[in-house]
């Protein structure tokens, strides 16, 4: 399969999800159940994408250990974000802890 063909389809699908409601405006109505379900989409999708990256960064089983920099830095990020709700602080501290752990402490 030509990747270009797949990419063009991905672009079409993605644009549809982004722009459909903005373009259709009031003509698109969601039932209350659908609205409630959509409300859970961001937190479930984003969490589902990152949880394997944090818990099993080497695709070789669970790494519940202080030697797992992804897990340590993600924990820091969760605590900082819950405490401060500050995005820049969360991202910057998490990246600093991650790289310090990965290339400082463990080497």
């Amino acid at each position, binding site marked *: *399969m030509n*990747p*270009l*063909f*797949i*990419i063009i*389809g*991905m*672009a079409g*699908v*993605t*644009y549809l*999800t*982004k*722009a*459909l*409601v*903005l*373009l259709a*405006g*009031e003509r*698109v109505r*969601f039932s*209350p159940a659908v*609205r*409630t*379900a*959509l*409300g*859970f*989409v*961001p*937190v*479930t*999708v*984003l*969490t*589902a*994408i*990152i949880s394997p*990256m944090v*818990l*099993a*960064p080497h*695709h070789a089983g669970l790494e519940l250990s202080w030697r797992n*920099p992804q897990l340590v*830095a*993600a924990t820091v*990020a*969760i605590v900082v*974000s819950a405490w401060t*709700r500050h*995005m*820049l602080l*969360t*991202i*910057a501290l*998490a*990246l600093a802890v*991650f790289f310090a752990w990965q290339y400082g402490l463990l080497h």
Partner: protein
Amino acid sequence: MPHADTDTSRFNEFAAGARDMLPMLLGAAPFGVIFGTLVTASPVPAWQGQFMSLSVFAGSSQFIGIGLIDSHAGFLVVWATTLIVNLRHVLYGATLLPYVQRLPWRWRMLLGMLITDEMFAVSVASQRRQPGRLYGHWHMFGSGVAMYLNWQGWTLVGLIFGSAFPGLQALGLDFAMVATFIAIVVPQLNTLRSLAAALSAGALAYAWQDWPYKLGLLAAVLCGIGVGLVLSRGVRVEAAAGEAAP
């Protein structure tokens, strides 16, 4: 004629949008680089990787898309996964609609292209802080353009570095995506049911990560939404839908 004034306020809104996006640009930078390096390690030609950033402009689905193409998934699997992963944009659009529905359709087409997790978070915060601004849509435009240019630039850097130094993706730059998503998700977990939905989806996505074609991810998301729906029974719907936004 108030032309100079209106030009100034348009520009000020645009600049404020770009400025509010700065922390997100920091988080997306390593993510864009790792995306570029992943492309160089896949069968997708470099220019098509850049074309993906230009046309799809949705980091997590680009990431997953490259992985699926690399594992020879069929085009329907890639498109279905893209649809599920990007469904959250429908909610973003519905939340942003009140602020853009009086704009000409060209504006709405343009802002639709620029919607991302980051642009949505920045735009909603700005519109709620100070609603009813005449040129508020220029703020959205500014934050969206800042992220778009940022994403193209870092994709290009990743493509160049990935070709020059194979193995760059082993550095763990993809952790930037984890950090960014945590910064977006955690402030939204302000109810027991959203917390339960997120934890279920996360646990199941881990447990099912070896399912072919990322189908475990889709199943985990659907189960997480199901948990949220079950716990929402009896809760007033307006409130449940409204509080998902940061």
